[in-house]
């Protein structure tokens, strides 16, 4: 019987967990002991510097981050839907175009796309004065559409085949079936992963600073860096970081809620 065993399964599990906690505590201890707390306090938690950032950090920086993200995501969503439909098209050329586009832009750093759009277009077409918001919308939209397109394609493919068959047998055309039956259900499925893309784009919007900005156009990262320059303190970076979390954490919460309501499993129950 179990007399030959040195440890029961439960004891072993407890031992391993104990070791994990021990290592965790050790890491925290080492970091806490080696960090220079005095410097951290003056550098990151300078109350005067923090106070000086308000209200502009909200009224300008946070607002612009939201605007830039919304512009990019709106464009990305529209383009992504087109890409998804092209990927599933019966026309080979469309499929390959969409495939190539997605592989290309999904593999490029967002920063390069942003610089290519913001500085490349006016260079290639002399005399073009790019509206900054349009440049941002196009650049961030291109980046996010590559991800969004793949997410939507997966969503469309996840709509049960029976839905299409039922619609077709009721006499709906393939186009009408796609628009009225498949796409609405696909969006329900992809809402949680789309929220993830939105969160990622919120952070990528920081790269907009490379396009150059006037004071009224600063988003959170550039605003934080300007303040860092002026105040020679890292506090603005901390504040800017908190502001990103103000945007992203509610989005995560939303994503989780959508996942519970509409995610896998909810579909079959609903249908």
């Amino acid at each position, binding site marked *: 019987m179990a007399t030959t065993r040195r440890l029961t399964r439960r004891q072993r599990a407890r031992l*391993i967990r104990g070791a994990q906690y021990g290592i965790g505590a050790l890491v925290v201890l080492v970091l806490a002991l080696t960090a220079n707390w005095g410097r951290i306090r003056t550098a990151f938690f300078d109350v005067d510097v923090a106070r000086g950032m308000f209200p502009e950090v909200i009224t300008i920086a946070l607002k612009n981050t939201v605007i830039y993200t919304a512009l990019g995501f709106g464009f990305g969503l529209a383009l992504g839907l087109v890409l998804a439909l092209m990927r599933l098209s019966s026309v080979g050329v469309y499929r390959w175009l969409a495939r190539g586009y997605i592989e290309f832009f999904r593999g490029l750093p967002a920063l390069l796309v942003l610089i290519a759009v913001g500085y490349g277009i006016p260079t290639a077409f002399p005399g073009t*004065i790019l509206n900054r918001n349009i440049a941002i919308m196009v650049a961030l939209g291109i980046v996010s559409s590559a991800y969004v397109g793949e997410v939507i394609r997966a969503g469309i493919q996840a709509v049960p085949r029976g839905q299409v068959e039922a619609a077709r047998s009721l006499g709906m055309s393939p186009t009408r079936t796609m628009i009225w039956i498949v796409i609405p259900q696909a969006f329900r499925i992809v809402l949680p992963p789309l929220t993830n893309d939105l969160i990622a784009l919120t952070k990528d919007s920081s790269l907009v600073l490379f396009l150059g900005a*006037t004071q009224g156009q600063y988003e959170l990262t550039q605003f934080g860096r300007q303040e860092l320059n002026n105040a020679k303190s890292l506090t603005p970076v901390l504040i800017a970081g908190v502001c990103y979390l103000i945007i992203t954490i509610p989005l995560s919460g939303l994503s989780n809620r959508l996942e519970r309501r509409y995610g896998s499993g909810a579909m079959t129950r609903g249908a």
Partner: protein
Amino acid sequence: MIDRSRKPAARLARLVGLLAVAVLAAAGCGDDDADTGSGGTSGAPAGVDLVKDGKLTNCTGLPYEPFEFEQGGKIVGFDVDLVDLVAKELGVTQEVIDTPFDGIQSGADLNSGKCDLAAAGMTITDTRKQNFDFSDPYFDATQALVVKTGSGISDLAQLKGKKLAVQNGTTGQEYAQQNAPDAELVVFEDLGLLLTAVETGQVDAGINDNGVLYDWVKDKTDFEVSKEFNTGEQYGIGVRKGNTALLDKINSVLSTAKSSGEYDTIYERWFGKKPSS
């Protein structure tokens, strides 16, 4: 049965062990860095501590032609040549680190031990002096305005409501903030992006140091430097606060180079003429 349930546990234990070793090693490395940074060991001669053995690391912001820029895959320029003289004196080689200018001029790069010195076409200012130390001045500069030829813009007052490009963290940005309150200042990360914006007409004018702007317009017919502002600036090489051993070495190399004529040779190589003074 028993065997099968033990295997994963053993693997886990090994993983945990490895992790612990890695953590300890990382912590150990951190300590080493801190020691070198605060001036203990290092293999450089004459009591000069270097952040990297055998290398004189120079934090600079590329491109800043003709002070530091890439040419044929190598980073060259006026500043690079001067720092090479210091490196030669120390018997080490120069290593250039390209980093955003706001990190250089705020002292963050020097004081965090990222670089030994910063030769970055950088003006000596009182604010910067609070955060790190400067060598003796090695170059005279003023702010200047670059515009499209024939635009008729030759002063800041004419930029009312127009877009003026400035570079993040520079004295030009500071000057424009104080003297062009009616212009819309557009902040760019580096000189290359700023000049591209000027060239493609995204902005109406750009402000930066005269040396780099003259260098840029010299082979352009449709852009000109329309104004110099006589800000009377002087460039200095930055070192970490309190690193007097390195600072003294830089100053002695600079003064030797000036008296021996080597400075003039380098100056002529990058500016096409001898220094005027």
